[in-house]
């Protein structure tokens, strides 16, 4: 069979299990396509040389009649800030150019347990700090829909590779929108789970209190299937939560998916570009026919969200990134003739400009005399936003907004203006500050450039959020088109 790379998760796993094609055939076609297509978009940093061997093992299992996992044979691309045993994990940084982790992240272990194949490591902004994947020391990733445009970030490689059909699905990490923004820019589905639902063990920390690993797929259904495997309490991460006690499906009857009250956040749509604005309203028209109750709502504290987000994220980052001193791991640099302070300075000079900027800002907001003024205040805003959203979710089942208020823009357009760049995250950071689940699904194009809809739900309402996202996805019905590469 040809063009196997177009299949979704269910089609791949069924096809392999029913021996319509082999896992090996599937992986071979994917690798062939990566070799052909990825030179155009640069979404991969490392390709897993073992993928074919693993595919052969799955085929052997199937031929011998042994049971295989629920994700048997699918190929998953992994953002290169998630640790993979024996496979380089660079965080797109010179700092870790030679770093090979000795252990698998919990999400990787869970995927492997279900016989998913890790196809390779995907490009990102260095240490996940950025919104366009232009800040990578392995070169930028291009938008598969238009190669002159940015693909979003920081999980740009994860979104672009799925859009370009170089893997069945991928994992990204979302600290302030890093899964949803590139998903929106590349016209794929990207999901950020409730804080504590997915283990962060093995995810190289940028801002621990905000980030979650999340899947990117071409359909909501694919994202659901990955979530089923990667979520759940992990003894290696004290911040994960036992979902058996927390999944709250009150007031939600899956049979009545359409009977939901949806609020459009005024502050988040008003700041959007005209084309994004129009696209959102035409999408609302389409899914309104499915019987949702819809109205405009307001989140007053949203105006402080971005400042709060960047204060907390940079503060935590400044501490998290302190460990990169090249003493225990990193890259080749002989310490002879260095006093340790000068060695630290020398090696830490290898961080890229954006990372340095955030470390400096983060060290500043934590320093004595400024801690109360910035860090504590940011924490108070975070609580305020959480509280205000909680109140809104008493009234609405879901809240919607544009994922990103602007269309994908040209490469290089905003790279020299950090403030403009940070504004890209203005709609996505809310979910990270409040710890709630949020998804971006494709709803249309303007001049060939994708636009995404963000849907948020209250914490642990993943089932409701994903079920309804599927209904909305079907009502809009654009998932069948893919970029021509």
């Amino acid at each position, binding site marked *: 069979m040809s063009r196997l790379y177009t299949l979704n998760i269910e089609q791949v796993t069924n096809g392999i299990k029913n021996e319509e094609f082999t896992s090996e055939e599937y992986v071979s076609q994917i690798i062939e396509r990566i070799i052909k297509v990825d030179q155009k978009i640069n979404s991969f940093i490392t390709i897993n040389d073992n993928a074919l061997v693993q595919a052969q093992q799955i085929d052997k299992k199937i031929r011998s009649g042994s049971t295989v996992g629920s994700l048997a044979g699918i190929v998953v691309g992994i953002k290169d*800030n*998630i*640790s993979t045993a024996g496979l380089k*994990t660079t*965080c797109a940084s010179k700092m*870790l150019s030679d*770093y090979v*982790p*000795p*252990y698998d*992240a919990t999400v990787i272990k869970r995927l492997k347990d279900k016989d998913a194949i890790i196809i390779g490591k995907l490009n990102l902004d260095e240490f996940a700090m950025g919104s366009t994947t232009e800040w990578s020391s392995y070169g930028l990733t291009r938008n598969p829909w238009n190669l002159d445009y940015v693909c979003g970030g920081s999980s740009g490689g994860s979104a672009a590779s799925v859009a370009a059909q170089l893997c069945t699905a991928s994992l990204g990490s979302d600290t302030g929108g890093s899964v949803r923004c590139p998903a929106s820019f590349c016209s794929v589905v990207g999901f950020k789970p409730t804080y504590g639902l997915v283990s*962060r*063990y*093995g*995810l*190289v*920390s940028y*801002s*621990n*209190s905000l980030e979650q690993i999340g899947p990117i797929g071409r359909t909501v259904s694919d994202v659901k299937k990955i979530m089923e495997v990667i979520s759940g309490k992990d*003894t*290696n*991460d*004290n*911040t994960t939560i036992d979902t058996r006690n927390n999944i709250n499906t009150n007031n939600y009857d899956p049979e009545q998916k359409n009977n939901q009250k949806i609020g459009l956040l005024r502050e988040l749509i008003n700041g959007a570009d005209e084309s994004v604005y129009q696209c959102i309203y035409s999408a609302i028209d389409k899914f309104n026919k499915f019987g949702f109750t819809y109205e405009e709502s307001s989140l007053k504290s949203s105006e402080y969200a971005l400042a709060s987000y960047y204060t907390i994220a940079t*503060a*935590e980052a*400044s*501490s998290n990134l*302190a*460990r*990169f*001193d090249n*003493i*225990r*791991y990193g890259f080749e640099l002989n*310490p*002879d003739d260095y006093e*340790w*302070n000068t060695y*630290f300075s020398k090696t830490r000079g290898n961080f890229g400009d954006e990372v340095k900027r955030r470390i400096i800002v983060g*060290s500043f907001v*934590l*320093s*004595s005399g400024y*801690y*109360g003024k910035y*860090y*504590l205040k940011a924490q108070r805003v975070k609580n305020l936003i959480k509280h205000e959203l909680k109140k809104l979710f008493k009234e609405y089942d879901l809240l919607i907004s544009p994922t990103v208020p602007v269309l994908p823009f040209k490469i290089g357009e905003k790279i020299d203006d950090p403030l403009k760049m940070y504004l890209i995250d203005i709609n996505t950071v809310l979910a990270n500050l409040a710890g709630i689940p949020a998804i971006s699904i494709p709803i249309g194009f303007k001049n060939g450039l994708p636009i995404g809809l963000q849907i948020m739900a209250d914490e642990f309402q993943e089932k409701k959020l994903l079920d309804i996202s599927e209904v909305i996805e079907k009502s809009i019905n654009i998932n069948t088109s893919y970029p021509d590469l």
Partner: protein
Amino acid sequence: MTSSLPVKIGLEIHCQLTQLNTKLFCSCYCNYREKEINSNICPICLGLPGSLPILNKKAVEFAIMISKALDCKIPELTVFSRKNYFYPDLPKNFQITQYDSYGTSTSIGKEGSIKYGENYKIARIRRIQLEEDPGRLVYENGRTQALIDYNRAGVALVEIVTEPDFVDPKEVRIFLNKMTSILEHLNVCNTNLEGSLRCDANISIGNGKKVEIKNIGSFSDIEKALTYEITRQKTMTIHDIEIKAETRHWDDKRKITKQARSKEEEEDYRYFPEPDIPKILLENLSLIKTSELPDERKSRFINDYGLSEHVAQVLIDNKDLADLFESAIKIYHSPKSISNWIVSDILAFIEYDSSGKKTITDEMKIDAKHIAEIAKLVDDNTINRSTAKSIISRIIKTGELPSDIIKKEKQTTTIINDETILLESIDKIFNEEKKATLDAKHNPTAINFLLGKIMRMTKGRADPKITTILLKKRLDEEV
């Protein structure tokens, strides 16, 4: 008068929770000692990218036990903080610790107190908190670089901070003895292990600034370091030199304190709450029972066994001795004689160890059974005290049982109370000391002289009471 300037000393004690199985945030062994360099490590304690701390609940329980023993208030919940600074022995370049700021207390215990010394002086405890130990820098001869051993990185430490309630180094020593005994009795720390207990001190005299002394490796050096520092500060005051707030290091070899860095340029540690460890509820944990504490044990020794205040205190100050005592009286129930043998004789053989504490070492082959036998043999009048003492100094090295020695060497060890044998000796002395014998008939001092001769002849083994009676009787018969 500078000599009368009041001295204020406060302490920061770091106690490794050596009795835990694993480190504070990972499952590596707590016991890193004698392990091959960098073999007791994992992604977590090595701070590898993506690793997360997993809190050892038992460590929190231990810290609560210490807090309770020191009469501290225990808050309903606690959190951890990050202390950010760059140092090669610190795998993450921050230390996970606890920190009070902005009105939030993040200690496990606070505002406690402890009574110590004969006059039951009170030292207030400011706070008790948990934190991780860093790795160790290793300097090898002939090598210009330092090597780093991370085996110790992540071992649980409890930091105990006192108020500046001590007025002289001697008080500090007595206080630390008590503290050591409490930690031993709680069975949270084997204080005999090198580096398991470390202490920083701060000192000010008069209205002078506070000077911190760090790096005092053993409790035995604390008194020396404090005495040195007090003299230094007083000398400066006499010469009108201002004492600056600063941190000084104790130079273990030269036995002096020397300047480390001045307070002005002290690092900003940029503390903030550790995001990877959720808040810990302490309410339920605060119900944990502590084992018998030194003060309780001492009262029990006095009330149940009739020991004197002094003897009970000496035993309690060193848990090993108190344990030895209790095991021995189980074998032979004579608390007074056993405690006296331990306090007046065994103690003399026990050496001061590197931490400045008397420790029963593995080389000392004496245990409860030996002591019980010695006490019984003396109480039964089988051997005399001086024989007992020489047996003790012998068995401490050999581990032989006193009863075996007596059996094997009856002729040289046991008390002679056989009248025929004693009479033979008396006759022999009468023969040798004719003049004294005549004298003794009406002079009691001469009787003592003859008794002394007999004792010397029997190498002290003649039973003095029986011998005296027989002597008198014989002298009477001689008429």
